[in-house]
């Protein structure tokens, strides 16, 4: 009897299963491999719509968390000034910063707690910010826009930093000297083009950006665009020659750089 029930249930599901499998196949292989748990949920979602809903909520909750973390600190700005609000925002994200004219850095401890000393100097402007590995995004950047002395910004390995974030950096066009964008998985060359507004930039780190197809070429183009800027983290040859592609290995011996350029 159980078998008959099961066969009935299976038949009812089969149409949906086929569709779901087709969808899964169509998923590009480029995305990072999901965790075992996510894979298990995805597998279940082939059979049950409810699991699909749970996955949906999961994504929604994550988005909400990012929105909450990056909301505008309007209350703090109004009552304590832009500088204190910016400092507070950086610390709540577990980033660290240094005021202009001071040498020590403010950073939270390993459990995210921090002292409120920065509130005693409401006029001090922030000069260096290290937000590596935090959840900052283009909305959160709004909290920092009044820091027109900002010279150094590091967003190394920030998963929410995307091209729109880079496009918003023009607000620091007159001050930013050093920018570290390494290991941000969402940055593409379309966003790097917006760095042309940072006329004072002298050092730029673009290592480990997985979505750049031709990092070497992008480096050349960036150096041409920002003549005073030293671009690091990428070798010129990177991406020009792909040794695993067959047709290229053939004439590789003759003129390697030449073939590489031709394939652009």
């Amino acid at each position, binding site marked *: *009897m159980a*078998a*008959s*029930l099961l*066969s*009935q249930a299976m*038949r009812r599901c089969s149409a949906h299963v086929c569709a*779901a499998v087709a*969808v*899964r196949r169509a*998923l*590009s292989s480029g*995305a990072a491999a999901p965790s075992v748990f996510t894979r298990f949920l*995805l597998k279940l*979602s082939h059979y049950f719509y409810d699991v*699909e809903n749970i*996955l*949906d909520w999961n*994504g929604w909750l994550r*988005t909400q968390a990012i929105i909450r973390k990056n909301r505008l600190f309007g209350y703090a700005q109004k009552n304590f000034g832009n500088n204190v609000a910016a400092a507070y925002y950086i610390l709540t994200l577990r980033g660290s910063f240094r005021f202009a004219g001071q040498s020590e850095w403010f950073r939270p401890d390993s459990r995210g707690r921090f002292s409120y000393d920065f509130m005693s100097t409401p006029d001090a402007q922030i000069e260096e910010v290290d937000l590596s590995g935090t959840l900052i995004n*283009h909305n959160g950047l709004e909290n920092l826009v009044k820091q027109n002395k900002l010279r150094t910004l590091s967003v190394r390995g920030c998963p929410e930093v995307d*091209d*729109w974030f*880079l*496009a*918003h950096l*023009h607000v620091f066009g007159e001050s930013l000297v050093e920018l570290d964008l390494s290991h941000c998985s969402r940055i*593409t*060359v*379309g*966003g*790097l*083009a*917006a760095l*042309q*507004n940072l006329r004072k930039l002298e050092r730029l780190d673009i290592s480990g950006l997985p979505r750049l197809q*031709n990092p070497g*070429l*992008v480096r050349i*183009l*960036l150096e*041409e*665009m920002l003549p005073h800027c030293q671009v690091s983290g990428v070798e010129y040859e990177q991406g020009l020659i792909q040794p695993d592609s067959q047709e290229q290995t053939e004439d590789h011996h003759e003129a390697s750089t030449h073939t590489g350029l031709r394939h*652009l």
Partner: protein
Amino acid sequence: MWRKMFTSVPAFRALKAPCRSFKSSSRGPDKDFFKDLDAQLRAFRDKAAAAMPGSDWSPIELTPGLPPERADVVIVGGGVVGWSIAYWLKMKARVRDGLRVLVVEKDPTYSQASTVLSCGGIRQQFSLKENIMLSLFSAHFMKNINNHLWVVNEDPVDLQFNHSGYLFLASEKSAHIMEENYRTQRYVGAKVALLSPSQLKERFPWMNTEGVALASLGLENEGWFDPWSLLNALRRKAVSMGVYQCFGEVTGFKCAANLAETTDGEVLNVQRIKYVNVRMPNSLEYQPVECAVVVNAAGANSGKIASMLGIGLGPKESVSGVPLPVEPRKRFVYVVHCPDGPGLDTPFLIDYSGVYCRREGLGGNYITGMSPEETEEPDISNLDVDHEFFQEKVWHHLANRIPAFEQLKVSSAWAGFYDYNTFDQNGIIGLHPLVPNMYFATGFSGHGLQQSPAVGLAVAELILDGGFKTIDLSAFDLKRILLQEPILESNIV
């Protein structure tokens, strides 16, 4: 309950059938008879199951892909504007199946739709407050596109957005207009900067600044993106929310007519659309779709749709004698190759001569073009490209501005139709007084792609809330055409 399930026909048979064939195979001579019987029984079972209520089997042969017989809102035209309206209608209706929305598109390949033939640019450098706000909203939409358009179990949307601003150049004559526009743009919230010729030379050393008196450069929220990705993302999301799509052509309407009198005594023939006739591709068959509201988002074709309702066919000087002033206008886009051309900092350049140019990819390719003179509009019966036009009109302006382009090769070209509003080159959004249930969203004349996310919301608000909530677009109402009061935009490309 349990017994009912057990005896329910298909499951029971399914379990029994393999047993019987197993038994019969051991018996030898009876094998054929049982096998035959088995096959026949199976065929009968399939037929019976297909005829059960709830299946789509019917004794008459039907064309596949027919639209539903009834819908609340029928959207004519599945371009980016049509799908955006469908998405926002569903989004605002909230309840699944609370609103039946049907999108009718005549060409599943989109071979002539302006959406996929456009340059994909977005800018806030307009002179009208409404246009700036529409485009700002759309930029905001694209910024958060995956919060809007992501579908569970699918890849996130990637618009391939390239963040390089538009650079408008003004001559001595037009510099004061640019300054005025700049003030409006800053006031509404766009991030734009003015550059003097010397600043311009310093920023873009590859440019010849001769004749330029002033330039304005977009700093943020401007650039270009892949129109296909936006169209597909909107469509995918809308379909996942339950919008019906149908490939067929709208050939006519069935209306109920009413006579109404205006205050100054003119008698109007007011028609309310009851049915939309949808003709299926490659056949003469058509299906009437009963509907409450129709949206005209047929792009360059929307003037034709309006004339199906008699708009513009009435006697001159009367309301019904004023046609919808939207017609197709052919525009050429040339892809040129120039290895020594400008690099990553290439903006979307708009010269005061009317020539535009932007980078395409990183391999030294650019796309360029310009609008012809009003008197030299090309023939619109096909989408053939006029290569002479590039040689005679475009090239010398282009090479004058960017000297490296003296040495370029045209590698390909295409043409597309602007949904050109001959009256004042701005979008037309709203109802026509003679057809109280057809909403117009058309006439965007070369900036419809970038405005589509915002326009979709505006039309959805108009339909569901009865008025604009987010952005006040009452200036774009159809009334301005009937009253002959154009609202002019100075930055038309």
